[in-house]
């Protein structure tokens, strides 16, 4: 990279996985990058010394990993300690080390270069393996190689923290559990990585620490160097490197607003969501990880309206045991600040289960063998989760939610298996298993909405999943970028579907919640309020603003807006009406979005 590039401004777009804005100096965490030098040894006599240097780095790496493992165990971190086991075994793998030594000897190159060749060798082999899971294990080899390289270059401390007291933004290709275990997390302002998605390790750590993070930036490590000024906008999914002064000022301003707004709004979070004419709505939070509970409560969640359990299956390679489920759920349902917790049984397709991978290459997985359909086929996997839910339901108010129900038969079958799980527990002598648990279904498949009255006879509550309901009812693939303009929660058909569900539920005397993104959209709140949904569950950041609007309106106003919105024939008309109304009525809440 030439000198003048160092101050060039780059704006990169990735996936925002943890909201907020961080501004600070970059710490480039990636020893596989340019600072590693590759060179030929001057003469053969240097070979033994080079081999020794390599062996020493291997030994040091192993000792470090053993240390990390010990600390993880001591801290009772649920992080899979075995991953580090695998890394240690790679370090000790003779095939791996002998190959590297051979490269040093045969080609007269330094250890770094030889190691790089070994990595390339394994890359080629792993790429050739048919099994996706196995071929992705090359990342483990990469982590190990990175660590050895760090030791070779003498960067013993992995993370250089002598960057002043202002903290750093960690920029890396990827961050492994072992890496974060060694980071001083209180010195980190934000994260930006080349790879990763919402469930990547970086994303999870960032969310639990409430630090802004953007992942999936592809090649940020190529543009940025340690000590560069970096802005991470985790809300917009953007990273700016070396912002020019005006831009920096704008972002500092934005960050101040964000922080102030956060503090301001947090006050509303504490208050109940009651309209001026005394109509109260229950406000829940959608979570995926137990680490999110503290921020959910801080932002004003009264309950967990949706606890997604997919994570338990994805972030590991074996199946979670009943105890794994139980230990996670227990921490949710026993939280004294939550009135109830709704656990949704896993919504996954076979592709997430290693041994089903091959048979589950589906053309249209969104409509494929997933969620309840998969569970009803793989009863044993399903029961493990159900048993754990029964057990925690004795410890705190627990509701169970079945995803993707499209018929009465499915919910009956699911209930039958749920009851079997209960009987089994009782027969095994497990104490305190309750007689019953609140059973709900996701209303996200159009056929379920059409027969909502029939389904209401089967369950204790509904929860409307707008994301999928919109995608299925409007027949748009959410992943298809060319169709995003059609994805419209305010489509008249969508509004009617939601209204159908609410009416069917209330006629049957059961509660109805909404847990899709629409529930946390301030633009839609009066409409949802007018429909008389009993609970709205959303991401924690949306809660304060939603509560604030509810507290400043009346049911009468909400019904008026709803009726007017329902009178239009087209989605653009509904949107333009609602938008104008909300912006005029709650100017403070919507101004920021003009930015």
């Amino acid at each position, binding site marked *: 990279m030439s000198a003048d590039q160092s101050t060039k401004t780059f704006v990169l777009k990735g996936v925002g996985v943890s909201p907020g804005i961080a501004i600070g100096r970059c710490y480039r965490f990636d020893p596989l990058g340019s600072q590693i030098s590759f060179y030929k040894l001057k003469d053969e006599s240097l070979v033994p010394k080079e081999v020794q240097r390599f062996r020493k780095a291997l030994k040091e790496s192993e000792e470090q990993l053993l240390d990390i493992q010990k600390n993880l165990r001591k801290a009772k971190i649920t992080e899979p300690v075995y991953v580090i086991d*695998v890394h240690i*075994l790679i370090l000790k793998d003779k095939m791996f080390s002998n190959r590297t030594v051979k490269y040093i000897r045969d080609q007269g190159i330094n250890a770094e270069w030889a190691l790089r060749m070994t990595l390339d060798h394994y890359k080629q082999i792993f790429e050739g393996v048919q099994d996706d*899971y196995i071929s992705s294990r090359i990342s483990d080899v990469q982590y190990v190689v990175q660590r050895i390289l760090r030791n070779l270059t003498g960067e013993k401390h992995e993370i250089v923290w002598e960057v002043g007291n202002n903290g750093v933004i960690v920029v890396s290709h990827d961050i492994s559990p072992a890496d974060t275990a060694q980071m001083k997390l209180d010195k980190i302002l934000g994260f930006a990585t080349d790879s990763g998605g919402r469930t990547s390790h970086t994303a999870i750590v960032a969310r639990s620490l409430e630090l802004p993070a953007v992942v999936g930036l592809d090649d940020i490590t190529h543009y940025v160097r340690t000590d560069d000024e970096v802005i991470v906008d985790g809300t917009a999914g953007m990273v700016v490197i070396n912002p020019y002064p005006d831009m920096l000022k704008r972002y500092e301003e934005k960050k101040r607003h964000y922080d102030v707004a956060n503090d301001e709004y947090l006050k509303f979070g504490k208050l109940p969501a009651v309209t001026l004419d005394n109509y109260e709505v229950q406000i829940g939070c959608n979570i995926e990880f137990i680490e999110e509970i503290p921020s959910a409560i801080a932002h004003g969640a009264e309950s967990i309206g949706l606890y997604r359990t997919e994570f338990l299956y994805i972030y590991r*390679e074996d199946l979670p045991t009943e105890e794994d489920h139980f230990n996670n759920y227990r921490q949710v349902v026993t939280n004294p600040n939550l009135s109830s917790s709704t656990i949704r049984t896993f919504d996954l397709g076979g592709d997430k289960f*290693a*041994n089903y991978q091959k048979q589950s290459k589906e053309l249209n997985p969104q409509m494929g063998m997933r969620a309840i359909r998969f569970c009803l086929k793989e009863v044993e996997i399903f029961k493990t989760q159900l048993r754990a839910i029964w057990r925690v339901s004795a410890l705190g108010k627990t509701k169970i939610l079945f995803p993707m129900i499209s018929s009465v038969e499915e919910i009956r079958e699911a209930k039958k298996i749920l009851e079997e799980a209960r009987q089994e527990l009782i027969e095994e002598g497990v104490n305190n298993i309750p007689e019953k648990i609140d059973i709900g279904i996701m209303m996200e498949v159009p056929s379920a909405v059409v027969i909502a009255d029939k389904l209401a006879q089967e369950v204790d509550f509904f929860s409307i999943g707008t994301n999928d309901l919109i995608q299925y009812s409007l027949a748009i693939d959410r992943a298809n970028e060319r169709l995003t303009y059609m994805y419209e929660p305010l489509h008249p058909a969508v509004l009617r579907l939601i209204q159908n569900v609410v009416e069917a539920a209330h006629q049957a005397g059961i509660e109805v919640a909404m847990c899709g993104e629409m529930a946390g959209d301030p633009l839609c709140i009066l409409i949802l309020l007018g429909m008389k949904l009993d609970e709205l569950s959303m991401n924690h950041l949306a809660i304060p603003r939603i509560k604030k609007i509810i507290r400043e309106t009346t049911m009468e106003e909400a019904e008026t807006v709803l009726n007017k919105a329902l009178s239009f024939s087209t989605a653009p008309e509904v949107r333009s009406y609602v938008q104008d109304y909300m912006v005029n009525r709650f100017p403070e809440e919507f101004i920021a979005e003009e930015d």
Partner: protein
Amino acid sequence: MTQTKTLALKNKLGMHARAAASFVKVAQQFDSKIYIERDGQTVDGNSILDILTLACPYGGKLTITAEGTDAAVAIKELEKLIENKFGEE
């Protein structure tokens, strides 16, 4: 002494990282040389990377060979590990 045994993997995930790690850990306890063969490909039973590249799925057959004084015990222990599904489930 050389001992050989052919076994099918019973754990649902097949020979994945965790299982391979358990295998190597057991194999390392013996003086015998351990080899695994699958579909004509033979790898070192002490090399986690080699074992992984076999990509042996659930139900897949492996032939384990041990050469050395403690070959019989080694085979017995490795068989036990596979029969116990590597402690999974």
